[in-house]
């Protein structure tokens, strides 16, 4: 009977040293499974059946490390791939590519019994405190299950440890024999904590552990998690969508968008000196609980693109308010700003067709950009305007013209930008603290 903490770990990692190194990690999902999967109809060919697999790029080429004893916050909006990343890290999902170096061993390479044994060192806490506890088991059994799976202690020892842990997480050990349904949400989350701690792990992935809880209960659970981290020397990957919670609990923070990490820095640095436009947009959007600071505003336009076919280069470029001007044209900043706005308005069709003159007035203050860019814009305006420049008759079906204008603008401008042609990855000098500040934005080139 040996505690898993000292089994098989020869190279002990010192506090502050990287415990986990993730390199080029990718997780793609096939859209559906089954005999006819991958079959889809495509009327543009004959026979109208397409056998190509569409793959959802949930996590696409991610690099980072987690240091022993720290809490790395992972924040992003729904669908950005943060939960998938957490689960892939734990090998609950099979990585498509990449390595997960945990204390010198690659988790991505492990499988079967070897992986199962390794699970005593890495644990997970789930978002839904109710769904993550088997309703038919008693909380004592639930807490003991991982110990049993790893052959830790004997029956009596397990019970003692379970009771000890229940007390540690702030529950009454006398409730050992109760079913989860007798507990409130916050208490159930504490049972989850006790279960995760039972095998004395080093690393815990916390997937939105407090987002299902009320504010006042959130604080209780967060405090307990911090106390446990100190006491047991735990390392957390804390996944959340709530920036306030992230700011409170993390040491360093990674921001995810559409399968990529766009920024990673020390907490203070990230919140006080955000360098990626997406991080800024996120921070600007959070409502601050102070009526004297009413600045939460929807700074972002449009919607997150599909992860099946994400934008090239920087994934945020299709919504970025600071999309970099393509270099092959000569612009002033103002001209580019106008063109960018116009391009996106055409793409999203947010306006009614109007005469060309009105377009110029509304989007360009009357003056089109000079040179080649201006000509392209003029062409695009002609396509969508109600009075086509070539003097031909009024058109009735404008659908194709919209498409054409859209393609013209995107092709000439959006896809010419460095944001579309190169994937950004830069290290910046931090203003707060000394740690590195990673920002995936070409503004820092």
């Amino acid at each position, binding site marked *: 009977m040996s505690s898993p903490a000292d089994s098989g770990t020869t190279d002990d990692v010192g506090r502050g040293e990287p415990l986990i190194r993730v390199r080029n990690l990718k997780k793609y999902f096939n859209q559906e499974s089954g005999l006819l999967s991958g079959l889809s109809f495509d009327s543009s060919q004959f026979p109208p059946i397409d056998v190509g697999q569409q793959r959802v790029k949930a996590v696409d080429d991610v690099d980072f490390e987690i240091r022993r004893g720290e809490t790395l916050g992972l924040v992003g909006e729904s669908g950005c791939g943060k939960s998938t990343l957490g689960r892939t890290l734990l090998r609950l999902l099979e990585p498509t590519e990449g390595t997960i170096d945990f204390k010198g061993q690659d988790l991505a390479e492990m499988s079967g019994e070897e992986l199962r044994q390794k699970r005593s060192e890495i644990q997970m806490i789930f978002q839904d405190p109710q769904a993550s506890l088997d309703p038919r088991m008693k909380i004592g059994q639930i807490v003991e299950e991982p110990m049993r799976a790893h052959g830790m202690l004997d029956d009596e020892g397990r019970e003692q440890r379970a009771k000890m842990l229940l007390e540690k997480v702030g529950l009454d050990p006398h409730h050992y024999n109760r079913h989860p349904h007798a507990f409130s949400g916050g208490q159930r989350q504490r049972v989850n904590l006790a279960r995760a701690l039972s095998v004395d792990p080093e690393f815990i992935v916390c997937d939105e552990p407090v987002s299902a809880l009320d504010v006042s209960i959130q604080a209780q659970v967060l405090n307990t998690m911090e106390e446990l981290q100190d006491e047991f020397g735990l390392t957390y990957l804390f996944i959340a969508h709530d920036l306030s919670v992230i700011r409170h609990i993390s040491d360093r923070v990674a921001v995810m968008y559409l399968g990529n990490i766009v920024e990673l820095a020390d907490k203070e640095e990230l919140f006080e000196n955000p360098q990626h436009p997406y991080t800024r947009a996120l921070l600007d959007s*959070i409502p601050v609980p102070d009526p004297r600071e*009413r600045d939460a505003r929807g700074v972002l336009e449009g919607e997150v693109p599909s992860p099946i076919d994400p934008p090239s280069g920087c994934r945020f470029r299709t919504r970025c308010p600071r999309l970099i001007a393509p270099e092959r044209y000569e612009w002033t900043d103002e001209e580019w700003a106008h063109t960018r706005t116009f391009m996106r308005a055409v793409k999203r069709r947010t306006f009614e067709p109007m005469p060309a003159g009105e377009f110029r007035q509304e989007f360009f203050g009357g003056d089109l950009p000079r040179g080649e860019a201006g000509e392209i814009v003029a062409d695009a305006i002609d396509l969508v305007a109600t009075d086509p420049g070539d003097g031909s008759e009024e058109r009735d079906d404008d659908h194709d013209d919209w498409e054409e204008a859209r393609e013209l603008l995107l092709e000439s401008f959006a896809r010419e930008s460095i944001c579309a042609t190169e994937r950004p990855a830069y290290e910046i000098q931090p203003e707060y603290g000394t740690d590195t500040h990673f920002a995936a934005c070409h503004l820092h080139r």
Partner: protein
Amino acid sequence: MSSEPLLRVENLKTQFFTDAGTVRAVDGISFEVHEGEIVGLVGESGAGKSVASMSLLRLVEHPGEIVGGEITYRGETIFGLEEGPDGELREREDMLSNEAVRDRIRGNEIAVIFQDPMESLNPVFTVGGQLREFIELNRDLSGKEARAEAIRMLREVGIPDPEERYEEYPHQFSGGMRQRVLIAMALACEPSLIIADEPTTALDVTVEGQIIDLVDDLQEKYGTSFIWVTHDMGVVAEICDRVNVMYLGEVIEQAPVDELFHDTKHPYTQALLNSMPRPDRTVGELEPIEGVMPEAISPPSGCRFHPRCPDAREVCQRVHPEPKEVARADGYPHNAACVKHDAFDVGYDESPPLEAEPRLTAGTPGGEDGE
């Protein structure tokens, strides 16, 4: 404050009659909504805020029932009881009939926006069709005009390409877009009051920002009043003019938003604010509220917050405080239901503090005595 309020709620009580007993979900709340303001109704889950807001339209579902109080909208009685000749309560003469509430109030005068944009739209009808139906029903417009109006409203709430999207089905819209459709529905009926029940809770933070932005703009343009039901103090600070804080079926503090945050008068509100992590600054240690909210089936005696209150004294166990004016700001009263204020004068200062029972942070299981 001088003019007659748009909506006046007095001592509203809504109860659910279940097998386990009577749940006093809303237990005697009073508040007002004036023209053109956004009034917040804030509280944690179980506070009774959603039931309260649905009671305003008399849309409480079985086995719930409004059992007391008065709801007056522009001089009309949406709900009101009086004592009959035998002392029993009966509906007042001037209380609107079910048909009148349905035809004249719901949609026409008071519209709602629900929390869950995924479930609130009917999956088998087009977005435009649903919007048009509500417009036709609540405004004097022909089918064609209603359609034009529906498209105009879709554009107004920022839905790209509204003509095409009019013909699409809800599942083709993202969550944020669906919430915009619900806002369009509410505004298109040209009501004077919109009840927004957690309208941004299900949304991502950037989308939430977009929606708050939109509501702010549209509210300014149309002058509609809002009751904004939420659990998020951040959203309250962002958008509300005046706020009612609810705890266990009661309003425990009501104040203009700035006073509520910067001159907090009720220990619960204060505790709630202290327990929140903040996005704008790093908080060293959070101060959680002890214990959990008790069930509305058997609320604690005296002040309902006293078992969790850091300021609780012996008197709090005995005296049940109604909200009283403890300060004034901008011509609005600042009410709090806490006996520590002088306005109550029940001997709080002399009363001995309650012994803090040694307890584990999480308390006993919610099931009380277990199985």
